[in-house]
C-alpha cells in the first residue's frame, strides 16, 4: 500500500466513524466493530492511525465489550502522543469505572491507568481509591497494579495520596490472593524506586521482608497463582531466617513447590532452599540431592529454551557441588535435535562433572560428537575431551582416543587434536612416546590453522630426538617462511629451529641460519626481536643459549582458570536470574540498583553499559573480558607507573601466568614457548640494582622489598584466593592534592608499595596495590590492597589481603602512615 492510498483510506475511515458517532440505528455496532477492527489492524502492522483519535473517542459510547476493548487498546497506544486529546477519553473511562459489571470496571480502570499522561494524573486518584476498595477481587487486582502505573507516571502524587500505605494494608488483609500478590509486586517496585529517589534507604522495602509478612505469604502459598508464587518465593529468598528450626519449617511448607509443573516456580523454590541452608553445610548438601531430580526433569522434558536456562543454572551448581550430578551425566548427552547453543552448554556440563567414576563413558560419548555434522560442535567436543584429560589423573584411555582423532583425517579434527596433544604433553610428559609416534604420521600439509601449526612446530622442536624426520619437516616450514601469515607460527618456528639445533646440530645448522635471517628481516616486531635475541644468545655461546632457550622442563600442574571464584560466588547469589544464563554477575551489565558494593565497572569506566552490550551477543565470549576487567591492560599500567617502571613486563606472555615460578637462581623453566621474552625474576632483581636506591621504609617493624615484582595474573589469582584480612578506613588530610592517580602512585611507589592497576574518574578512584616483605622468596610474602578513595571528601578505604596474615597489622600501620605522609611531604 503506498502512502497516498493509505492517506485516502484513513480519510475514508475518518468520515465513516464520524457519521456513526451519533447514530443509534440498529446494527450500527456491527459496522462500528468492522471499522474499529480495520483501525486496529493498521495499528498492528505499524501504520500511524493517531489522526483518527477524536473520531475513535466519539464513537466510544457503546455497551459492546469487544468494541470497548478495542477502543481501550487504541487509546492506550496513542494517548501518550496526544495528551490534549486524551482528555476526551477520561470522561467515558471514568464513567465505565462505575459500571455495574466488575469486568468493565476493571478494564476501564486498567485503561485509565495505562494512558500515562502526566496532566491527567488527577483523574486517576479517585478511581484508584475506589478500585482498591471495590467489592470485587478482579477490580482490586487491577487497582493494585494501577497504583504502580500511577507511581511510574508521577511518584509524588502516588505517595502524597498515601497509596503505598493502602497497598500495605491490602497486602496484609485482602482475602483474594491475587490482590495480595499484586500489592506485593507493586510495593516492591515502589519502595525500591523510592529509595533511589530519596535517601537511598531500603528501610521501607525491608519492612516487607519481616517475619510476619513472610509467614503470612508462605502460609497462603497454595492460594497464589503459579506466577504469584514465583514472586512470593523471590521475596522469601531475601528473608534471613533467624534459626535452623525456622528454616526447616519454611522448607517443609515449601517442599512440594519443587514438584510444581512450572519451571519458574521450581527454580524460585530452589533459590529459597539454597539460601536458607547456606550456613548449614550438611543440610546444604542434602538440598542438592533433593533438587537434583526436579532439575534434571526440567532439563530433558521441557522446551529447548527451558532446558538451556536450566542447564545454565546446573552449570553454576556443579561448580559448587561437582559430585552431585556426576552420576547423572547421561542427561547432558547431546540430542541430534538440540540447537547448537544447547549442545555447547551440555558439553561444558559434561566437562565439569567428569570425574574418576564417569570419565570413560563421558569421553566415549564426546568422541562420537567429533564426527558430528556440526563442525563447531565437533571442535568443541574435542576440546572438551582435552579439558577432561587435563583435569584427570588417569588419562590413559583418553590419550588413545585423542590419537584416534588424528586418524580421522579431517582437517579441523586434526587441528584441534594437535593443540590438545601439545597441552597434554606439557602436563604429562610421560605420554610423549605414544603421542609422538602418532603425531609423526600427521602430514604437515594437512595442517593449516595457525594454532595447530604452532602446536605441531612446538612438538617437532621439543621432541626432535624422537621424531627422525623432525629437522626435515621444519625445514619445509622455514622454506615457506614468506608464505606463513601467522606471526604465532613464525615465532614458534624460530624457537623450534633453535631448540632442534641444540639437539641435532649437523642436520639443522643451515636451517637455523635461514630461519634467523628470515626472522631478522620479518616485519612483525616480536618475530624480529625474538630472532635478534636468539642470534645474540648464540653469539654468547651455544651452551649459554641452550640454558636459556631449552632448559629442562617441569610439567605444568595447573592451567590458569578462566573465571575467578569471586565472580562465580557472586553469580551464585543471583541464582534464578538472567545473570546465570549469561554466566556473568548482573552488576556487570545491569543498572545501578543491582550493583554490589564493588563498583569496579563504574570506577574504571572500562565497561560502559552500551558498548558492552552491543558486543554482547553470546554469553560465553566474555570470560576473557572478565579477567581483564579486574586489572587494567598492560599499557595503562605502564602509563600509571609514570615512566619509573622497569619495563620488565613488556613481553610477559599471558599464557605463562599459570606456571609455577622456579627458584630465582634457575632461569624460567617455561621458556620453551616464548622463553627469551620472559625474563626471570632473578634478572629483574639484577636490573633493579641499577636504579636509584629506594627510600628506606619508615616503619621499623616491617621492612618491605624495595622493588617487589608480581605479574597481573598472579595478583589476580592471589586476590581471588585470599580473604580480606583487614579493612582500613582513613581520611586523607589534603584530598584536593589528588586530581589524578599519578601523584599518589609515585608516592606509594617511593615507599615500596607498587601499583598493579588503577582507574576511576574524579572524585572516585580505585587502586590495586601490592607490596612484599623484604627478604622473602619471590612468590610469597605479598600484601594485596584494594584502595578506594573519594577525593572530594577525602574518605578512603583499603581492603588488605596477605599471604601471611600475621603481618597484616604491621602492614596496615605502615600503609596508613604512608598515606598520612602523602600531601604533607
Amino acid at each position: 500500500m503506498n502512502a497516498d492510498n493509505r492517506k485516502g483510506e484513513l480519510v475514508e475511515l475518518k468520515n465513516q466513524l464520524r457519521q456513526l458517532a451519533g447514530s443509534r440505528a440498529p446494527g450500527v455496532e456491527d459496522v462500528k466493530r468492522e471499522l474499529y477492527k480495520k483501525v486496529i489492524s493498521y495499528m498492528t502492522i505499524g501504520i500511524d492511525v493517531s489522526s483518527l483519535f477524536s473520531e475513535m473517542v466519539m464513537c466510544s459510547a457503546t455497551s459492546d465489550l469487544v468494541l470497548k476493548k478495542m477502543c481501550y487498546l487504541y487509546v492506550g497506544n496513542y494517548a501518550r502522543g496526544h495528551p490534549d486529546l486524551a482528555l476526551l477519553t477520561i470522561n467515558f473511562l471514568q464513567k465505565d469505572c462505575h459500571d455495574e459489571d466488575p469486568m468493565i470496571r476493571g478494564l476501564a480502570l486498567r485503561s485509565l491507568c495505562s494512558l500515562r499522561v502526566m496532566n491527567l494524573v488527577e483523574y486517576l486518584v479517585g478511581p484508584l481509591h475506589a478500585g482498591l476498595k471495590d467489592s470485587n477481587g478482579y477490580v482490586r487486582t487491577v487497582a493494585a497494579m494501577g497504583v504502580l502505573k500511577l507511581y511510574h507516571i508521577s511518584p509524588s502524587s502516588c505517595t502524597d495520596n498515601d497509596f503505598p500505605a493502602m497497598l500495605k494494608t491490602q497486602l496484609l488483609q485482602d482475602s483474594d490472593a491475587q490482590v495480595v500478590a499484586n500489592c506485593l509486586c507493586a510495593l516492591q517496585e515502589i519502595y525500591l524506586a523510592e529509595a533511589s529517589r530519596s535517601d537511598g534507604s531500603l528501610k521501607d522495602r525491608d519492612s516487607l521482608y519481616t517475619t510476619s509478612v513472610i509467614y503470612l505469604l508462605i502460609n497462603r502459598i497454595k492460594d497464589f497463582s503459579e506466577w504469584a508464587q514465583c514472586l512470593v518465593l523471590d521475596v522469601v529468598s531475601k528473608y534471613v531466617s533467624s534459626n535452623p528450626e525456622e528454616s526447616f519449617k519454611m522448607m517443609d511448607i515449601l517442599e512440594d513447590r519443587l514438584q510444581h509443573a512450572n519451571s519458574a516456580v521450581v527454580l524460585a523454590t530452589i533459590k529459597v532452599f539454597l539460601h536458607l541452608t547456606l550456613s548449614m553445610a550438611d543440610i546444604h548438601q542434602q538440598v542438592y540431592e533433593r533438587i537434583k531430580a526436579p532439575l534434571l526433569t526440567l532439563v530433558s522434558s521441557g522446551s529447548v529454551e527451558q532446558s538451556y536456562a536450566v542447564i545454565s543454572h546446573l552449570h553454576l551448581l556443579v561448580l559448587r557441588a561437582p559430585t552431585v550430578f556426576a552420576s547423572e551425566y547421561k542427561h547432558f548427552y547431546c540430542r541430534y535435535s538440540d540447537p547448537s547453543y544447547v549442545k555447547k552448554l551440555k558439553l561444558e556440563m559434561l566437562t565439569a562433572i567428569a570425574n574418576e567414576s564417569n570419565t570413560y563413558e563421558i569421553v566415549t560419548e564426546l568422541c562420537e560428537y567429533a564426527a558430528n555434522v556440526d563442525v563447531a560442535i565437533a571442535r568443541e567436543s574435542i576440546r572438551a575431551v582435552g579439558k577432561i584429560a587435563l583435569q584427570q589423573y588417569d588419562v590413559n584411555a583418553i590419550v588413545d582416543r585423542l590419537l584416534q582423532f588424528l586418524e580421522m583425517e579431517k582437517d579441523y579434527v586434526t587441528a584441534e587434536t594437535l593443540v590438545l596433544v601439545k597441552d597434554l604433553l606439557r602436563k604429562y610428559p610421560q605420554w610423549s612416546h605414544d603421542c609422538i609416534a602418532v603425531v609423526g604420521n600427521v602430514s604437515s600439509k594437512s595442517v593449516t590453522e595457525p594454532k595447530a601449526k604452532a602446536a605441531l612446530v612446538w612438538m617437532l622442536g621439543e621432541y626432535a630426538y624422537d621424531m627422525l624426520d623432525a629437522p626435515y619437516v621444519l625445514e619445509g616450514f622455514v622454506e615457506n617462511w614468506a608464505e606463513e601469515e601467522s606471526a604465532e607460527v613464525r615465532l614458534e618456528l624460530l624457537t623450534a629451529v633453535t631448540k632442534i639445533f641444540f639437539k641435532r646440530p649437523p642436520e639443522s645448522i643451515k636451517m637455523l641460519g635461514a630461519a634467523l635471517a628470515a626472522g631478522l628481516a620479518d616485519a612483525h616486531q616480536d618475530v624480529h626481536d625474538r630472532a635478534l635475541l636468539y642470534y645474540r644468545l648464540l653469539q654468547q655461546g651455544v651452551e649459554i643459549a641452550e640454558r636459556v632457550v631449552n632448559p629442562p622442563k617441569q610439567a605444568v600442574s595447573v592451567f590458569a582458570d578462566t573465571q575467578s571464584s569471586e565472580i562465580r560466588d557472586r553469580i551464585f547469589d543471583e541464582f534464578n536470574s538472567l545473570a546465570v544464563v549469561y554466566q556473568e554477575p548482573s552488576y556487570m551489565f545491569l543498572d545501578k540498583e543491582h550493583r554490589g558494593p564493588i563498583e569496579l565497572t563504574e570506577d574504571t569506566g572500562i565497561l560502559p553499559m552500551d558498548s558492552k552490550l552491543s558486543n554482547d551477543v553470546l554469553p560465553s565470549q566474555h570470560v576473557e573480558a572478565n579477567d581483564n576487567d579486574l586489572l587494567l591492560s598492560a599499557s595503562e599500567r605502564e602509563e600509571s607507573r609514570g615512566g619509573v617502571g622497569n619495563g620488565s613486563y613488556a613481553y610477559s606472555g599471558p599464557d605463562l601466568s599459570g606456571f609455577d615460578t622456579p627458584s630465582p637462581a634457575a632461569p624460567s623453566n617455561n621458556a620453551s614457548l616464548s622463553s627469551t621474552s620472559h625474563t626471570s625474576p632473578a634478572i629483574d632483581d639484577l636490573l633493579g640494582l641499577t636504579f636509584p636506591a629506594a627510600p628506606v621504609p619508615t616503619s621499623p617493624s616491617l621492612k618491605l622489598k624495595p622493588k617487589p615484582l608480581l605479574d597481573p595474573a598472579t595478583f589476580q589469582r592471589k586476590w581471588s584466593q585470599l580473604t580480606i584480612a583487614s579493612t582500613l578506613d582513613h581520611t586523607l588530610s589534603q584530598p584536593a592534592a589528588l586530581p589524578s592517580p599519578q601523584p599518589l602512585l609515585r608516592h606509594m611507589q617511593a615507599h615500596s608499595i607498587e601499583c598493579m592497576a588503577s582507574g576511576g574518574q574524579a572524585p572516585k578512584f580505585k587502586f590495586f596495590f601490592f607490596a612484599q616483605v623484604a627478604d622473602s622468596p619471590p612468590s610469597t610474602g605479598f600484601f594485596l590492597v584494594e584502595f578506594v578513595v573519594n577525593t572530594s571528601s577525602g574518605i578512603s578505604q583499603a581492603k588488605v589481603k596477605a599471604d601471611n596474615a600475621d603481618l597484616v597489622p604491621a602492614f596496615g600501620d605502615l600503609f596508613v602512615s604512608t598515606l598520612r605522609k602523602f600531601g604533607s611531604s
Partner: protein
Amino acid sequence: MLHCVFLLSEHGEVMLEKQWMGQQVDRSICSWFWKQLHSGAKGHVPSVIAAPAYYLLHIVREGITFLACARSEMSPLLGIEFLGRVADVLSDYLGGLNDDLIKDNFVIVYQLLDEMMDSGFPMTTEPNILKEIIVPPNLVSRVISVVTGGASNMGRILPSATSSNVRWRASGIKHANNEIYFDLMEEMDATVNRDGFLARCEVYGEVRATSRLSGMPDVTVTFTNPSILNDVSFHPCVRYKSWEANQKLSFVPPDGSFKLMSYRVKNLKNTPIYVKPQLSSGEGVVTVNVMVGIRADPGKPVDSIVVQLPLPPAVASSDLSANHGTVTHNHNTKISTWNIGRIPKDKAPCLTGKLHLAKGLDRLHEYPTLLVGFKIMGVALSGFRNDKVDIEHVDYRSFKGFRALTRAACYEIRT
C-alpha cells in the same frame, strides 16, 4: 518484568506487538534481533540474549517467534515459561499456530495478552479461566452469536473462579453427562551409540485429564506401581501430601482438559524395536544397510514406524530402497524417510542402497544419525499403570475412562 511481547512471522515480520509498560519498546529491536538470528550458523542464538538496551527472551513455536524484552534482572524461567504459555493458549484458542491465524484473529490475541499480563507481570494464564473471560472464536460461539444476535466473543460474566476458594474451578458447574477421562501419554527418549549400545533410554510421561463433572468432586486416582517413577510434577490442584504419604493422586479437578501430572522414568533396559544400521564407505560410495525389528514386545502392536536418515552435506546423491514400506527423499532438507508402518510377520524390514559422495571425497567422515519414530496404542512403555479412580462429594454416577499411548520422541541411532 517483561516490557513487551512481539510476535514475529516466519520471515521476521512483526505481526503483533503488546506493550505493558509506560515506556514503549521500539519495533526496531525486532529487526536487530532478526539480524542476530540470521548472522551465523543455525541455532547459535540462545533463548536469552542481550540487545543494546534490553534483554531479549525468545521462543519459537511452529515457526512463529515470541520475543519478549526485559530491562531489569528477572527470572529467565519466568519469562520463558510465560512465553511458552502464551504460545499454548494462542494455539488452543486459534486451533493451531500460523501467520494467517494470528493475523485473522488479532483482536482475540490482544485481548488474551491483556489478561495474561499486567504491568509486566504474568496474571491469568490458566486456559479454563481465560475461556470464561474471553470466548474462543470457535464454531459454537459463532453459532450462538448468530442466534442471539449479540455477536460478542466476550464472556459477559466475570470468571467465577476468582471468587471461588478453589481458584482453578468455578462453583456451580453442571453437566448432563458426568465423565472423567485420563490419558497416559509416554514419550521415549533413547540414544544408541556408534557401538550399538543403548547410551540412554528414558521415558517422559504425562497424565492428561478431561473432566466434565458437576459440582465440587474430589477425585482420587491410584496406580499399581508408582514406585517406578523417578520424578513427578503436578497440576496445582493435586494435594502433594497425599502423594507423598501413599502415592495417591487426590485432587479437585479443573473443568475441561488439563495436565494432571508429568513424570520421568529413567534407565529403561530396552527399546521396543531395534534399528541396526551398517554403513561402510570407500571409493566415494557408502553402502547402507538398515535392519528394523521387534526387540522387547510391548504386548501391543508397534505402529507408524518411521526411520529418518538425514544425509550429511558430503553426500551428493542417494539410491535407497526397502523390502517393506516406502522410501522417500526430500531434496531440500536432504532427509531420506523410510515409512515402515507395522512390522510384518513374515519378513524383517530392511533398507539397502548406496550413497554417492561429492566429487573428490573417498570416505564419509561425518556419520549421520538415524531418527526413529513409532507409536504404541494402549500401552505405557514404562509399565506405569492406573489402578482405580474414586470420586467423592458427589451424588451422581459418573463415567471414568483410561487410555494409554506411547510414542518415540527422540529416538536416535548413531552410525
